[in-house]
């Protein structure tokens, strides 16, 4: 149970305070309700590039990191297809420094040309490091446009191509800031060794004077239900074949979410899970196999992935994956197995309460979804899932005409000779 207090400033900034006096630290987490899905299709990767620019100095403070490090603090941020989230941890005695820094960059950035130029390069190197210069690194660049035809989830957070990042202009940066970075689009969580009254005073002092800005009204094209099986095969200089099967599923806010997440756990969580047990151990067809969901706010993805063993054909591998999911469509999950995944979910939630930052991020995200208090209802919702609901969801999701299959074919490389094993880009 994570307790909190909540208030809203006149300019629309929502503030949540979680008092936890077991730590001498404080966190200040700000979630901006903007992600890669809000980008212009011709300027993808922008939300994430912008996140980098948020560290390039604000209107009154030329250097963001230095003053924070000086008071013993650390910070970072991440961007997803749905949100952009910034966080600071620091000794609680220095909490006001976090307010000073975060409020100034919500007020306005410095919009330095040098910062844009450098961060463009940094992000391009990030693009290479994580997506292009890695075996299988480009899978999401290929899989997303198969699953999504209309919705902006069809591009990855990093962007469709390096070109979009190279082309970013300072005017675009300014317009993006004006549109998305204002108090109405933000949720702030302050947690740790703090008092609600002090947080309230500091919030009024530092964030109160920031103009409310215009409310961004999101109006994204939603993804139509998929009606035909999709399939692509790529050949790459990777050492092993790899099979991905992705299905559309309802978004995170749909009531079916809990059953679907447990279904992915049944397939793939821990060494007792079905895919590992049957396809890696009992009847070895794969060296590794996974099932997971993206948890997206709009139409999500349920993904099966596996690397078949040498000598196992792609057809055999696909068939084995389908056999496992067919079982979920026809047979009830046994009571013990359902209890098992519920117990695991319950204990994971308890373990997550050991981390102040995790709690703060969760409160912000649940507030975005509707109500921070729902975070405390999660356990109950998972516990209420029935075997019938899982079977129903399996029948809704695991259909050929709802599937996108991406096959990576290995172009024979010799792993013991590193000089000969370049990755194709």
């Amino acid at each position, binding site marked *: 149970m994570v307790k909190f207090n909540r208030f809203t400033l006149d300019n629309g900034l929502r503030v949540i305070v979680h008092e936890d006096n077991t730590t001498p630290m404080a966190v200040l987490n700000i979630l901006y309700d903007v992600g890669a899905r809000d980008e212009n299709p011709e300027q993808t990767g922008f939300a994430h590039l912008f996140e980098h620019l948020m560290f390039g100095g604000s209107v009154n403070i030329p250097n963001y990191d230095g003053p924070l490090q000086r008071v*013993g603090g*650390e910070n970072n941020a991440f961007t997803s297809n749905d949100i952009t989230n910034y966080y600071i941890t620091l000794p609680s005695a220095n909490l006001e420094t976090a307010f000073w820094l975060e409020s100034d960059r919500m007020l306005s950035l410095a919009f330095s040309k040098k910062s844009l130029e450098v961060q463009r390069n940094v992000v*391009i190197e990030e693009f290479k490091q994580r997506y292009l210069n890695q075996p299988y690194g480009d899978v999401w660049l290929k899989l997303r446009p198969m699953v999504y035809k209309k919705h902006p989830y069809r591009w990855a957070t990093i962007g469709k191509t390096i070109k979009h990042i190279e082309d970013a202009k300072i005017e675009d940066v300014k317009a993006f800031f004006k549109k998305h970075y204002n108090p109405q689009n933000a949720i702030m969580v302050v947690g740790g060794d703090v008092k609600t009254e002090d947080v309230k005073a500091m919030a009024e002092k530092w964030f109160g004077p920031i103009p409310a800005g215009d409310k961004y009204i999101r109006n994204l094209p939603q993804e139509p239900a998929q009606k035909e099986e999709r399939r692509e095969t790529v050949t790459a200089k990777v050492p092993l074949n790899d099979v991905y099967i992705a299905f559309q599923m309802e978004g995170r806010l749909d009531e079916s979410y809990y059953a679907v997440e447990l279904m992915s756990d049944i397939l793939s969580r821990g060494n007792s899970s079905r895919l590992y047990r049957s396809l890696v151990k009992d009847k070895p067809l794969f060296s590794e196999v996974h099932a997971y969901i993206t948890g997206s706010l709009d139409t999500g993805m349920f993904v099966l992935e596996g690397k078949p063993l040498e000598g196992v054909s792609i057809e055999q591998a696909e068939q084995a994956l389908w056999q496992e999911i067919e079982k979920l469509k026809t047979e009830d999950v046994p009571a013990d197995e359902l209890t098992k995944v519920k117990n695991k979910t319950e204990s994971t939630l308890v*373990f997550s309460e050991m981390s102040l930052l995790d709690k703060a991020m969760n409160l912000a995200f649940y507030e975005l979804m509707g109500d921070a208090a729902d975070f405390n209802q999660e356990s109950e919702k998972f516990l209420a899932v029935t075997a019938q609901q899982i079977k129903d969801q399996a029948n809704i999701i695991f259909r050929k005409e709802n599937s996108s299959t991406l096959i990576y074919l290995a172009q024979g490389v010799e792993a013991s000779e590193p000089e000969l*094993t370049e990755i194709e880009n």
Partner: protein
Amino acid sequence: MIQQGNDLMTQRQMTKLDRHTPPQFNGVENIKLIHPESSKLKNGCKIFTFNSGSQDLVRIEWIFQNSRFEPKKPLLNVAVNTMLTDGTSKLTAAQIADKIDFYGAFLQVDYSYDYSQVTLFTLTKHLQATLPVVKDILTDSIFPEKELETYMRNQQQKLQVSLQKNDFVARREFNKALYGETIYGLAAQPEDFQSLKREDLLANFKQMYQPGNCNIIIAGKADPQILEAVTTTFEGAWGEVTTVADTTQPDLQPSAERFIYIEKVDALQSAIRIGTPFINRTHPDFPGMQVLNTVLGGYFGSRLMTNIREDKGYTYGIGSGMQSFKQTGSFFIASEVGANVCKAAVSEIEKEVTLLKTDLIPNEELSLVRNFMLGSLLGSLENVMSHADKFKNLYFAGLDYDYYERYTQTVKNITAEELKALANKYFDFDNFYKVIVGKY
């Protein structure tokens, strides 16, 4: 819900807010570390208990020193560790997994150069159900032939994939150059998995996983019943063994060649790893070197990040670090940089290392690093498990809690002159090992 106070609003309008001047701040004064309760079982196994925290959960670690490394069997230690969950004479791998997962617990095996360990995370209410599983695997693992085949096949495939990653290859080449055919330096090739034999695993297991070579560390809501349960479980069934586990290690064999370049013609980025064998935590200069390392590449605002990422945009990330092992240590700088700027990046790295030897670190920068390091130490003590982790750093290096006192004093007081002297004593860029994987 809290109502907004009007008095605050008025205050805000009375004085104009100064957004240029940082708010007053406080230094980190007292860092209190939780010390463990220690006890010892009759069979020689030591237990350290950290009892704190409000969640009803506990983490228990069983930590063993690795047995002596045999260059001909480089995978033996890691294979034994990884396969501990793969079956005992009473439980199959599947039954072990079922039992642990059913109770929502997590059972992990971890292998590092000096130690192998088993970790159980469990809600305290399920300890009685999960603890016997750990006892079983630590006293009675049998490494079934079929499981060994699966392990070899899958690990071999995983290694093939990892060998396609430039940073992975750079790390292996670097360690090989620094340490030679030792536990720290010798990395296995995919075909080495084929030479694993069940009888070798069994022999290694019997020799190494004995109570006299085991430290148990309990952290969480560990009230007396928890300790009692652990004691009862591991005292009775786990007999004393007369032979002592051989945990000595062969001498290090650094390579004469200091520049290692593995070319990959199509690489978009090159992995760089530069460094040298180094002092470890037991050396009096270690805390001072941690300050110097932080300045150079140990935090986001470090000189390497500021220059090579934030000014030049050559990389997504660059950093330096120190690793402390039982027998040795290392100092290293690592990055992945655009293939076309690799030479330029290496020369900037050299520039930054040299600067520490020729110029004093300005006061402003040094005071920032001091505060950052103390804040970071405080922040690293997030929960009772982090306190146990701090203890492990000390205990396995043969140090006591005075170390952290010396560490904080050094961070607070070391002078720019002393840091410059350390740089001159330890940094000889020409003699550093330099590994490049990609294009140069």
